């Protein structure tokens, strides 16, 4: 009997249930498709980096499961509230509470199972689409095939039914505890403000602001002083931020509402009273919901920006660091075997060998004090390049020739470090190399691989006639050690000077431009040609010194093609995960707001009906609706928009090696713009629908 009643009721309320049903289906489909990707062999085989991809998807599932749990919880509670009158009536008719909650459970389990099956079905298609996108990113052919991973289904089932049961138990408890009166009159009651005392409210507001500011400051310190980065501090900052956001919204909504309702002349002005009372009637639900939505927006905004930053950095790194298809450095002047391999395996356009030298104490590095580049260059040793080599490299890359007088030098650097050097040369445009004074002619920032090939961050271009002096300086630093095949371990040689130049100096360079791109195999085989040297190392393990040898390659190979492949995988992972999380969050918030609107417009219908009877005209009503929705939509956006800017700037500071400030700001504008666009469309759509619902009156 109860079963029949329950099914009939579910049918009658199909319209309300549809949103609930769709929410559950989408949730299942998303969990399933991403689980499928996590266990997919096709994806793992794509590249060695993709192993991490699967791992991070599993990790991020935790966030997703929590979000979906929240969403299902909200939807189920909404259904419960909608049907509270019905349940109250049953109770009056003498049906036991036990049976009512049993009925509600039964209904939900049926819905859950049906939704799960449909969700998995949709998930299979979604998985195919996502795989196709990933495969396309890697230029791999992929045929759509209906695969069905038992593992993915199992994981989805565990996630989904885990959430579902917890939420359901919570609702059952609620049904059992609620009194009949409250069931029958649930829709007539207003929520009471959690904090009744206005002073307490102000205190909470201040605490929330302090928490948020502290979180931003800790975050700033962590990212600008990256060497001290600890996960613990980050965790503290995130916890403070979350707490701050919630407290902010709990206090701000009652703050605003109080401001308008406690002062009579403000309250009675225009539509304020009706508007703010509508808001206070649901103040607790509203402030918690707003806090949650604001938190999600914060994640979307920061995540989106970080994804763009990483993307910028990876692209810039390739452009700045890999202008040539192949770049090699070795310690001695013999490229013959490498050239042979290169000529056999790739169509060479142009090839050039040259040498970089080291000079002492030019003080140019001071320009980079207190910048991210500080740690990336040596204290008193600078790399120099002969002017004729420089022009040859420029010619190979299609840059125009430059000219240099005998008493001038050029500083060639990364475009991200340009500002620091310009600052420096404005104050001092002279430098001394081996006690000869030169004028810094200009700072150039074409892409000539200053990341770690042609200098570290920058290189000094000197006139060709300086070669003998430079050579002399260079040999002072690099003493020949015949035992080590003329390879120099500079650190040991210069102990008394305290210079740290790393282990080896690979001064001889080879750059190649080609007609075709190279691949992973080419890179690996070319690297294989480089000799390895066994270096004895001493390391302390559990209090004892242990001796072991490490294999150290005597040379470096960089190929553009291989790097692009790697970057693509990383880009795929980052953008995919960012997209995934954003999708889940947007879906969750959108569904939530839709449910709220559906619920409210029905509830408000009566209120607006009365206003109409009392003689409020349509224009005025539309204005109130617009204001009310604006309040709902704009307030959760407010805090994330403000807080995210300093956070993004601090996070961005670790990217400034390869990303310019202009790019960081452009990113922020892009993400904010996109967000406002999507959100704005949703806002307008809601307003239109809401107004239409209200206009249906008589």
């Amino acid at each position, binding site marked *: 009997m109860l079963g029949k009643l329950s099914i009939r009721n579910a049918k009658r309320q199909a319209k309300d249930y549809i949103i609930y049903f769709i929410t559950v289906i989408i949730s299942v489909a998303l969990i399933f498709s991403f689980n499928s990707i996590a266990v997919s062999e096709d994806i793992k085989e794509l590249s060695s980096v993709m192993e991490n991809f699967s791992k991070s998807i599993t990790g991020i599932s935790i966030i997703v499961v929590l979000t979906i749990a929240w969403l299902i919880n909200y939807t189920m509670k909404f259904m419960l509230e909608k049907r509270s009158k019905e349940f109250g009536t049953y109770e009056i008719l003498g049906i036991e509470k036990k049976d009512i909650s049993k009925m509600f459970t039964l209904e939900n389990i049926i819905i859950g199972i049906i939704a799960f099956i449909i969700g998995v079905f949709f998930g299979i298609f979604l998985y195919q689409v996502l795989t196709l996108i990933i495969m396309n990113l890697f230029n791999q052919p992929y045929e759509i095939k209906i695969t069905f991973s038992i593992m993915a289904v199992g994981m989805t089932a565990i996630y989904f039914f885990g959430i579902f049961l917890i939420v359901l138990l919570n609702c059952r408890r609620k049904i059992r505890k609620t009194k009949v009166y409250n069931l029958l*009159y649930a829709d*007539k*009651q*207003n929520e009471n403000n959690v904090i009744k005392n206005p002073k307490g409210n102000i205190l909470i507001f201040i605490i929330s602001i302090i928490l948020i500011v502290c979180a931003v400051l800790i975050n700033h310190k962590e990212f600008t002083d990256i060497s001290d980065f600890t996960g613990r501090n980050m965790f503290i900052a995130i916890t403070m931020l979350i707490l701050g956001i919630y407290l902010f919204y709990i206090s701000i909504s009652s703050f605003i509402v109080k401001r308008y309702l406690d002062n*009579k*002349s*403000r*309250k*009675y*002005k*225009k*539509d*304020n*009273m*009706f508007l703010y*009372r*509508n808001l*206070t*009637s649901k103040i607790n639900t509203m402030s918690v919901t707003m806090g949650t939505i604001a938190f999600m927006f914060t994640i979307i905004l920061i995540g989106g920006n970080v994804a763009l930053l990483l993307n910028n950095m990876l692209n810039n790194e390739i452009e700045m660091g890999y202008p040539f298809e192949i770049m090699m450095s070795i310690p001695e002047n013999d490229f013959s075997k490498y050239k042979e391999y290169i000529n056999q395996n790739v169509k060479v356009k142009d090839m050039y060998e040259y040498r970089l030298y080291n000079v002492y104490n030019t003080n140019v590095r001071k320009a980079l004090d207190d910048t991210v580049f500080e740690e990336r260059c040596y204290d008193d040793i600078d790399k120099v390049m002969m002017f004729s080599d420089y022009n040859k490299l420029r010619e190979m890359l299609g840059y125009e020739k430059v000219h240099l007088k005998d008493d001038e030098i050029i500083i060639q650097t990364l475009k991200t470090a340009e500002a620091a050097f310009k600052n420096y040369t404005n104050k001092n445009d002279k430098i001394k190399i081996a006690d000869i004074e030169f004028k810094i002619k200009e700072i150039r920032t074409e892409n000539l691989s200053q990341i770690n090939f042609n200098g570290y961050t920058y290189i000094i271009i000197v006139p060709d006639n300086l070669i003998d002096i430079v050579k002399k300086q260079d040999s002072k630093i690099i003493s020949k050690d015949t035992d080590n095949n003329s390879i120099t371990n500079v650190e040991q040689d210069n102990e008394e000077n305290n210079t740290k130049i790393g282990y080896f100096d690979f001064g001889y360079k080879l750059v190649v431009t080609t007609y075709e791109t190279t691949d992973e195999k080419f890179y690996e085989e070319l690297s294989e040609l480089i000799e390895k040297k066994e270096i004895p190392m001493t390391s302390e393990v559990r209090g004892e010194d242990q001796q072991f040898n490490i294999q150290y390659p005597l040379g470096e190979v960089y190929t553009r093609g291989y790097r692009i492949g790697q970057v693509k995988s990383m880009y795929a992972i980052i953008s995919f995960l960012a997209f995934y999380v954003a999708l889940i969050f947007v879906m969750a918030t959108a569904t939530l707001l839709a449910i709220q609107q559906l619920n409210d417009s029905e509830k408000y219908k009566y*209120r607006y009906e*009365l*206003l*109409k*009877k*009392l*003689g*409020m*005209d*349509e224009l*005025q009503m539309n204005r109130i609706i617009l204001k009310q929705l604006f309040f709902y939509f704009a307030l959760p956006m407010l805090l994330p928009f403000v807080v995210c800017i300093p956070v993004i700037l601090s996070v961005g500071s670790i990217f400034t090696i390869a990303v310019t400030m202009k790019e960081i700001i452009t990113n922020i504008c892009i993400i904010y713009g996109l967000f406002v666009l999507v959100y704005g469309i949703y806002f307008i759509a809601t307003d239109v629908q809401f107004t239409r619902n209200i206009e249906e009156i*008589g």
Partner: protein
Amino acid sequence: MEKILKVEKIQKYYGNKDNITKALDQISFDVDEGEFIGIMGASGSGKTTLLNCISTIDNVSSGHIYLGNQDITEIKEADIAKFRRENLGFIFQDFNLLDTLTMEENIALILTINKIPEKEIDTKIKDIAKKLGIENILNKYPYQVSGGQKQRTAACRAIVNSPKIILADEPTGSLDSKSAKQLLEIMEDMNKNMKATILMVTHDTFTASYCSKILFLKDGKIFNKIEKGEKQRKDFYNEILDVLALLGGDARDVR
């Protein structure tokens, strides 16, 4: 006495060509300023339809209704809301108070809709609430008070804006007899001391006995009209009963 409401030969039809129901059939009457007029009749006699037409919620099929000098059957759709809020006060059977607003705010609502300056609103409410004896519940919400208190608040809301006429639709319909009596005394007070013109629809004899004049409707037509004049309410009550007995059916209906 100035005539505040003039109803001229109004008709209201429902249904199509073949099956017309005349809900109102050639009804005409006047209401003077300061009158407390009751409209009685059985269910289906057309009294609610009449009230709806006067309150601009429904349109007449033919005829005219004048409130003051304005023909309300000719008001444009766009101006109806403005007309309603400036000229009419309502008391509904089911109170129609907003659950989200306190009693005070429910009364203030009509004033804010009418764009009364904020500063005047508070004094106006305090003033009227004192007169109607509800000042101690002003800060309560509708679900915290009784039906009688809700209806008194609704009466307060109806008069606070000094409308030309107050329209009451079965105001005692949801109340117990004690609350009903209290409400009617308040309405009588509003009528006598605040010079409010009230048009009340009811089917309850006791409620109707508070009126100064009663129209009886039957099948969409005015069946009878009686005035209280200088009579005691008890006598007027008996008079109403007599008319209702007559109205209940013709002798030939009883077989």
